């Protein structure tokens, strides 16, 4: 056992020395390798952070949302629906919500206008999300006017800006009083956009939904866990799609690795011949070369991963954000919470180290079977 460890140490020593001797040749490969890890790790870290963010946001949203459907389309909830639902076992709270979209032609972006249930916002004032504040250059106390879809102009005073945390969802939010909301959109009195229900016990959510569907057949309950599931699969899907697109790059990298590993210089060939002549076995040369591949992989992996981590969590992923987030014109600029996930690291390993090792295996063997007697002739 000791001899085995000692032998591996010797092999690593030799490998390190020979890597150092052929610095320039290995540097190119190392950089390409690290770049590949960097791109893939950025995608992985970024989507994972988004997924976490979405999950955190949804944690605070109601368990069930009820929408009325007319001719298969989402429609307003007419007065009296809240009462018709009445009391359902397990439902802690029911409220009608008021919200809608507004397209701001000035910055060409969509905002979400919303009237919170309790009178949190005074009439004539607004509370805006951070992205809105940023794009329109707003601070508390400023006045802003929006032209309603009816053509009328409305002026509001900004009462406050929402905090940065969970910016992903609140970024494009504009909060206003119920009266302002109804006036702005000419929303019929007593109508609501949808109904939110909170259910304490997760096991009861499905029964509640079934009861709702029975009580109001023209309505559609949307479950939070369902949304969560959809988000999870959308994010994974995006990530997977990116990886599939990047598979061309992975493939090209594998070919490069193969080329590099097979294109031994005459000097390297001579060295392997010498090693074999003076008593190294084919298996020893293979082991030494595998160590070489392993060390290169480890270095590239660490370099690429750390760079990706810094890019995503320090600088907010400027390189991949547009591709991966892409769900509104108005990009929220939010702080991603650093998170590393074991599954992702393992997956990343399969996309980088595995193709590399698979590609160099045969060239390594080819190099290792150099005739030992070649050292006698040159």
């Amino acid at each position, binding site marked *: 056992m000791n001899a085995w460890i000692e032998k591996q140490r010797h092999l690593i020593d030799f490998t390190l020395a020979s890597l150092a001797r052929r610095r320039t040749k290995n540097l190119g490969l190392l950089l390409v390798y690290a770049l590949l890890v960097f791109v893939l790790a950025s995608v992985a870290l970024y989507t994972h952070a988004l997924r976490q963010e979405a999950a955190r946001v949804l944690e605070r949203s109601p368990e069930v949302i009820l929408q009325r459907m007319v001719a298969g389309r989402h429609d307003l909830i007419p007065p009296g629906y809240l009462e018709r639902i009445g009391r359902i076992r397990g439902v802690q709270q029911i409220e009608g919500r008021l919200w809608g979209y507004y397209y701001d032609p000035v910055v060409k972006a969509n905002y979400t206008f919303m009237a919170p249930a309790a009178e949190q916002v005074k009439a004539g004032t607004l509370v805006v999300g951070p992205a809105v504040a940023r794009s329109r250059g707003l601070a508390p106390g400023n006045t802003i006017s929006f032209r309603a879809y009816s053509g009328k102009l409305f002026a509001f005073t900004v009462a406050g800006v929402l905090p940065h945390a969970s910016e992903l969802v609140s970024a494009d939010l504009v909060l206003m009083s119920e009266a302002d909301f109804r006036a702005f959109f000419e929303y019929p009195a007593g109508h609501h956009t949808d109904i939110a229900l909170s259910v304490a016990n997760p096991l009861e959510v499905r029964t509640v939904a079934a009861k709702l569907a029975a009580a109001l057949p023209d309505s559609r309950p949307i479950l939070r866990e369902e949304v969560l599931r959809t988000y999870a699969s959308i994010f994974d899907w995006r990530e997977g799609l990116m990886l599939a697109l990047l598979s061309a790059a992975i493939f090209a990298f594998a070919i490069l690795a193969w080329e590099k590993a097979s294109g031994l210089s005459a000097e390297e060939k001579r*060295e392997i011949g010498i090693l074999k002549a*003076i*008593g*190294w*076995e084919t298996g020893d040369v293979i082991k030494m070369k595998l160590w070489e591949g392993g060390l290169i992989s480890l270095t590239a992996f660490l370099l690429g991963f750390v760079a990706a981590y810094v890019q995503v969590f320090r600088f907010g992923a400027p390189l991949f954000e547009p591709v991966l987030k892409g769900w509104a014109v108005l990009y929220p600029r939010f702080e991603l919470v650093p998170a590393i996930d074991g599954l992702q690291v393992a997956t990343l390993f399969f996309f980088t180290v595995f193709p590399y090792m698979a590609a160099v295996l045969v060239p390594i063997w080819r190099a290792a079977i150099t005739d*030992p007697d070649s050292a006698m002739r040159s």
Partner: protein
Amino acid sequence: MIELKSIRKAFNQGRPNEFWALNGIDLTIEAKKVTAFRGPSGSGKTTLLTIVGCLARPTSGRVRLAEDDISGLPERFLTDIRRSTFGFVFQQFNLIKGLSALDNVMLPAFPTGRPHRELRERSESLLDRLKLAHRREARVEWLSGGEQQRVAIARALVNDPKVLIADEPTANLDTALSREFMGILENLNAEGRTVILTSHDPLVVESAAVHRVVSMRDGRLTED
């Protein structure tokens, strides 16, 4: 000690350019003696050394090393024998560039897994003996030809082999260095090591240190 029986070795077997470099060699090499092979270029001296030194397997025929038949052994086992029994000094010295003299000397022992410190001490004492202690950290490409050869000898001895094999050891040396080399050989032989070498150099084959000269031509022995 080493017994060769009807050894034949083909290159490019089965192809149009098939070539039989050795054509039926019967020979016994005695232990603890210095044996030299001589013959024109292309007569098969180097090929014969590769077979004796377990670097290659004969296409047919038997090789016996201290009573063991080793001709049919796979490479893996030949390597074990080669590592422990033979030390090689090559014509071009074949040191690994970029490594220090000491590192080069240690190389043949790496696969044995000998503890690093013990190995280092052994290598240093060998370099010491060959008067290279002051150059042990120098990269081999900065060494002179004679120094390089002494590093190669130290490397050949690091696993303490019974047999030393040298192919054209003096081809790249001037007369003085060749004499010095023969002196070293004599010492090693006096320690009880078998030495097998090839040479065109009269200084070598006619030296008093050589006990037996074997002549070759066209892959056969021609009696001496």
